[in-house]
């Protein structure tokens, strides 16, 4: 759930009791005020009546509430002295509503010309059930409109406020340290986002610098190894050529040369990996993969027949793609070489070219390999001492550079597929 909706949700839950409590307080406060106001009005009627009495003494004979809104009844002096003013609520039949409606009754006393009277005033009162009904309805309207306003505000305003954050997140999701991605931070006046922007920029700059440093280290180390390797290999070759060594010594020399050769290949592969990631292969051309695959297969014919493997190329349709030629060769070479080296003897390695797909399949161990680690560096699939363990890592790095999707699947055969997106 988004932070935005999260706050809205809590607000929605919190508003229910809040508005309910507020409704009770508001209702009783209002009712109190209404009673107060009605009672004042009734008292005022009494004063008005007293004012009118000297000129209209017939008022004292009014005893029909329906007629005059007041009812005067004579009482004894004794009762008069004990009587205290009182207010009460009662029901009265209202003609307009054709129903009993609540009324406020004010009972008081008055003395006029030594005569004692009890006076009853009435006034129509607020209908509480209607009031509550109205109140509840308006409160629901208030609640709904509050929620709508909050949600709209959240979605419009907060979305705008959070834009720097979302822009940052989008970029971070696509961020790859090996690619020279620059993170563009949006200008913002919000303190927290400013902090986030500067922290992330600093973190990325640091990591990138550290990454480049490491890559340079690998590259420099590999470079520095080339010359001593060259000197050792050449010295051994010269030694092997000029002396008439016994067979055993020649074989020892050859074995040393062989191992130095392995070291050289490992070194070259490491260099190649860092060069691919450093984007050093800039020249691109349209590669005819049907032709190129045939050429690579031709190079591997001897290796395949040495293992009694048959290389079978099936070109279903034409496939061209723009990329660096050297890298295209290395990509195909590594996949085909991998299939031959790990393929079963006396079996077939099949290469099929579709419009957007090249698949290389070979028979091998009868179980799927771990597709999560198969493209990792130094993940050796066999105990073959000559394998550098970098071939598939290099193939992966090349395909990633060009947005080609390289995957592995096992269905009786081990299948490596290159999916080209043009």
């Amino acid at each position, binding site marked *: 759930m988004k932070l935005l909706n999260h706050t809205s949700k809590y607000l929605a839950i919190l508003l229910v009791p809040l508005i309910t409590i507020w409704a009770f307080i508001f209702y009783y406060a209002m009712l109190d005020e209404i009673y107060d106001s009605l009672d004042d009005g009734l008292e005022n009627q009494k004063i008005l009546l007293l004012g009118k009495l000297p000129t209209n003494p017939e008022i004292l004979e009014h005893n029909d509430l329906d007629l005059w809104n007041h009812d005067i009844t004579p009482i004894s002096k004794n009762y008069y002295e004990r009587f205290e003013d009182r207010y009460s609520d009662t029901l009265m039949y209202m003609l307009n509503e054709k129903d009993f409606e609540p009324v406020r009754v004010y009972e008081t006393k008055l003395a006029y010309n030594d005569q004692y009277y009890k006076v009853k005033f009435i006034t129509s009162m607020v209908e509480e059930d209607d009031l509550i009904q109205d109140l509840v309805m308006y409160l629901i309207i208030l609640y709904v409109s509050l929620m709508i306003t909050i949600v709209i505000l959240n979605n419009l305003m907060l979305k705008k406020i959070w834009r720097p954050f979302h822009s940052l997140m989008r970029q971070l999701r696509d961020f790859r340290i090996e690619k020279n991605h620059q993170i563009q931070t949006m200008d913002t006046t919000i303190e927290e986002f400013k902090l986030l922007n500067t922290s992330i920029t600093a973190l990325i700059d640091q990591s990138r610098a550290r990454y480049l440093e490491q890559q340079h280290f690998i590259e420099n180390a590999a470079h520095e190894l080339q010359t001593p390797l060259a000197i050792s290999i*050449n010295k051994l070759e010269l030694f092997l050529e000029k002396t008439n060594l016994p067979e055993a010594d020649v074989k020892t020399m050859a074995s040393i040369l062989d191992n130095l050769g392995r070291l050289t290949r490992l070194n070259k592969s490491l260099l190649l990996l860092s060069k691919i990631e450093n984007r050093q292969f800039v020249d691109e051309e349209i590669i005819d993969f049907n032709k190129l695959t045939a050429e690579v297969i031709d190079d591997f014919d001897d290796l395949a027949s*040495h293992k009694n493997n048959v290389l079978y190329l099936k070109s279903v349709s034409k496939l061209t793609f723009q990329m660096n030629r050297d890298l295209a060769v290395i990509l195909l070479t590594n996949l085909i070489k991998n299939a031959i*080296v790990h393929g079963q003897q006396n079996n077939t390695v099949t290469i099929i070219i579709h419009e957007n797909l090249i698949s290389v399949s070979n028979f091998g161990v009868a179980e799927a390999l771990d597709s999560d680690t198969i493209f990792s560096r130094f993940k050796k699939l066999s105990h073959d001492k000559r394998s*550098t363990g970098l071939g598939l890592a290099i193939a992966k790095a090349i395909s990633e550079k060009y947005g080609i999707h390289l995957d592995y699947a096992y269905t009786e055969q081990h299948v490596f597929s290159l999916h080209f997106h043009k």
Partner: protein
Amino acid sequence: MKLLIIEDEPEMLENMAQTLEREHYIVETASDYKSALHKIAVYDYDCILLDISLPDGNGLELLKELKLRGKNEGIIIVSAKDSLDDRLEGLNLGADDYLPKPFHMAELHARVKAVLRRRHFEGNQHIHIGNVSIQPESRQVTIDDNEIVLNRKEYDILMYLITNKTRLVTKSALAEHVWGDHIDQSDSFDFIYSQIKNLRKKLEHATISIEAVYGVGYKLESI
């Protein structure tokens, strides 16, 4: 034939000089930019082997210098960097070839020989060895005037062995030259044997033969 090797690593220089001297070239050496500049200004060479990372200057500058002076030496850049930029820039500046370190001595010699052949129009000349004659331009091979048909790999193997006829050519040097750098990682270089076998069959009537040396490599022998 006079060669100049410009290389700052003394042992590397010694190896290269030694192997080329054995092929009866006159070899001169320079180990820094200054002395190299002096030598190319004063003398003419048939081929220059140039290490581009020198302690006191960039070897590519020497290439420009040679071009300015209108010199026409064959140039092979030798570099530990194997950088694509250097390779392209070097070739654009008129270098003939680019050889990344480390390399096999047989490969070095083959490259030098190829450059010299191109430079001196030796490409048009037949190469004779025993009763075998080769026309490099058209890649034609004849034994006693009878043409034999070799595939690309067989031809490349034969040429490489002929070029390095005085030395033992290891299987890895041969595989890398003929099958390319990418063939490495293969579980062994024994796969080259089938091509050798075919080539031997085709050279049945020749007075040269390809001899295996203790399973380590091959050597061309005259019968």
